[in-house]
């Protein structure tokens, strides 16, 4: 009983909605039959259909309104048609320009997001912010936790800051090439790794062609352990400099690589102790070496594990790097002062602890700040263009029919 009442109410609602189409004979046959069955049962719907039919008949008999004027066009309207054609062509060009500007703006914004988030790194940026300050902080932390006279790795990163840019990015960029030529050189000499750790090659490290390559090609993760295992005075650089640099520049991958290299160094204290230091004459060859070089005792002490772990953790953190190197690094040591005060005329800064100064070329990419300005200007320019085109299209759309 309740179901029948509910069904009747549902049919009644449906019938009222379809009475208009039934009058115009626009209902499908099955709907028409269903409506007629309901009309036979429902007096209210029959009444509604009747009044609706009268209303439609009234509307269709509504008097025609005579236009008070004639709407014929003057002959000059022919020019309007020609102008409208021209406007249509311009409108099509505007639409194409708006689409192109939208695509370019989307590409720029996507690139901006990818670059700022660190998913994609450019040559200038990979050397700059994300990794370099973190490495410097890590090295600084390592210096604080290490005993006095420990591995002098904190002095390396700040000391090799080139003078052509104050940004820490370039400091990092210079660190990385020094590690790779050395490791490449060690690999080219086909010296076993353990032997390289135990006995340094007597031949001075000559600058290799790879040293002149851009920074971003030289911070390859597989090379970090080799650089970390480099003997003698490079022990400090290998632990803090090369490993940290590799981990910083390549974030994830190199971090793991340096994590492999650093324990290898820590597990060889005896070999490091047996490693003879470089000849004083070799170390004092240039102005860089006016500062006291690491002693064998210094090299004999491996870097404490917590400090290295902390360094790795810090290098993996994305840290923006607007701060200059000086704010992150400790006060310059005499070696740093020598490095900063006396770079080589070509802008190439040799590294301490190497038998022969390695020539490092300036990164070939545009400086990061300039690149950022260009990027933001391009985004803003295309945004303004897009807004203008949108306005023109909005105005033009009102003329389209």
């Amino acid at each position, binding site marked *: 009983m309740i179901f029948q009442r509910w069904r009747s109410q549902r049919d009644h609602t449906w019938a*009222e909605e379809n009475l208009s189409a039934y009058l115009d004979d626009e209902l499908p046959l099955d709907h028409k039959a269903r409506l007629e069955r309901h009309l036979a049962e429902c007096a209210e719907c029959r009444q509604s259909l009747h009044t609706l039919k009268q209303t439609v008949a009234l*509307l269709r008999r509504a008097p025609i309104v*005579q*236009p008070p004027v004639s709407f014929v066009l003057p002959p000059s309207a022919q020019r309007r048609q020609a102008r409208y054609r021209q406007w249509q062509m311009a409108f099509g060009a505007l639409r194409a320009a708006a689409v192109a500007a939208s695509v370019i703006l989307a590409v720029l914004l996507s690139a901006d997001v990818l670059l700022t988030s660190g998913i994609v790194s450019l040559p200038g940026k990979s050397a700059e912010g994300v990794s370099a300050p973190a490495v410097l902080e890590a090295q600084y932390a390592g210096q604080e936790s290490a005993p006095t006279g420990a591995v002098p790795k904190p002095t390396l990163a700040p000391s090799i800051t080139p003078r052509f840019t104050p940004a820490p990015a370039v400091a990092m960029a210079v660190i990385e090439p020094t590690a790779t030529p050395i490791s490449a050189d060690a690999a080219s000499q086909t010296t076993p790794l353990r032997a390289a750790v135990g006995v340094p090659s007597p031949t001075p490290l000559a600058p290799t062609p790879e040293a002149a390559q851009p920074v971003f090609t030289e911070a390859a993760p597989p090379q970090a352990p080799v650089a970390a295992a480099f003997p003698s005075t490079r022990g400090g650089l290998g632990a803090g400099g090369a490993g940290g640099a590799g981990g910083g520049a390549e974030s994830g991958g190199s971090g793991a690589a340096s994590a492999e290299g650093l324990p290898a160094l820590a597990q060889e204290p005896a070999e490091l102790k047996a490693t003879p230091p470089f000849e004083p004459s070799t170390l004092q060859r240039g102005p860089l070496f006016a500062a006291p070089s690491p002693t064998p005792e210094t090299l004999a002490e491996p870097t404490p594990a917590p400090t290295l772990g902390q360094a790795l953790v810090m290098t993996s953190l994305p840290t923006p790097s607007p701060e200059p190197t000086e704010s992150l690094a400790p006060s310059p040591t005499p070696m740093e002062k020598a490095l900063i005060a006396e770079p080589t005329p070509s802008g190439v800064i040799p590294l301490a602890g190497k038998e022969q100064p390695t020539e490092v070329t300036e990164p070939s990419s545009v400086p990061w700040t300039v690149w950022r300005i260009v990027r933001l200007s391009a985004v803003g320019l295309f945004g303004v263009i897009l807004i203008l085109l949108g306005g023109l299209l909005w105005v033009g759309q009102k003329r389209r029919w």
Partner: protein
Amino acid sequence: MDEHRLIEAAQRGDVHAYNRLVLAYQQNLYNVAYRILGDADRAMDATQDAFLHAFEALPNFRGGSFKAWILRIVTNCAYDALRHRQRRPTTPIDDLIEDDEHSGLLEDDRETPEEHIERSDLQALIQKGLNTLPDDQRMVVVLCDIEGLDYAEIAQVLSLNLGTVKSRLSRGRAKLRDYLLAHRELLPSGFRLYDE
């Protein structure tokens, strides 16, 4: 000359050929605009705009029903006028001054004065009833019950699907019926709505 040739000539810029089309359709367009807008002056402006825009855009006409195409233009113009009126509501001067001499209705010489008054009352009541409808329902009711378009043509003119046309027409007719039933005493004697 048939409509197709006139359209082709007008597409080439022949104003005279287009004016023959204007004369053929101006009463339909003005009626639609007047029923939608409910105001003679705005209806005149909308109709004039529609014919001008139609002539400009005629090279884009790709065949089909010219009546549906030009009715689409006039409904767009009327809709623009409605939106403009909603932004800047004004009282037409015609509403303030009763024009007894010209009601805008088509003159019929065979009509007696009583019949003319009766027809004027009917026209006024229908227009008031139409004005109570929402814009979208009013357009469908005007195109269907006053212009006599079928559902498919209305869907083409208003760019709607058939289901939307059907539902808007049903709701519009029902509201108009309720209005006329509520004002049945104002209807002329020959047009009374009777309950069964």
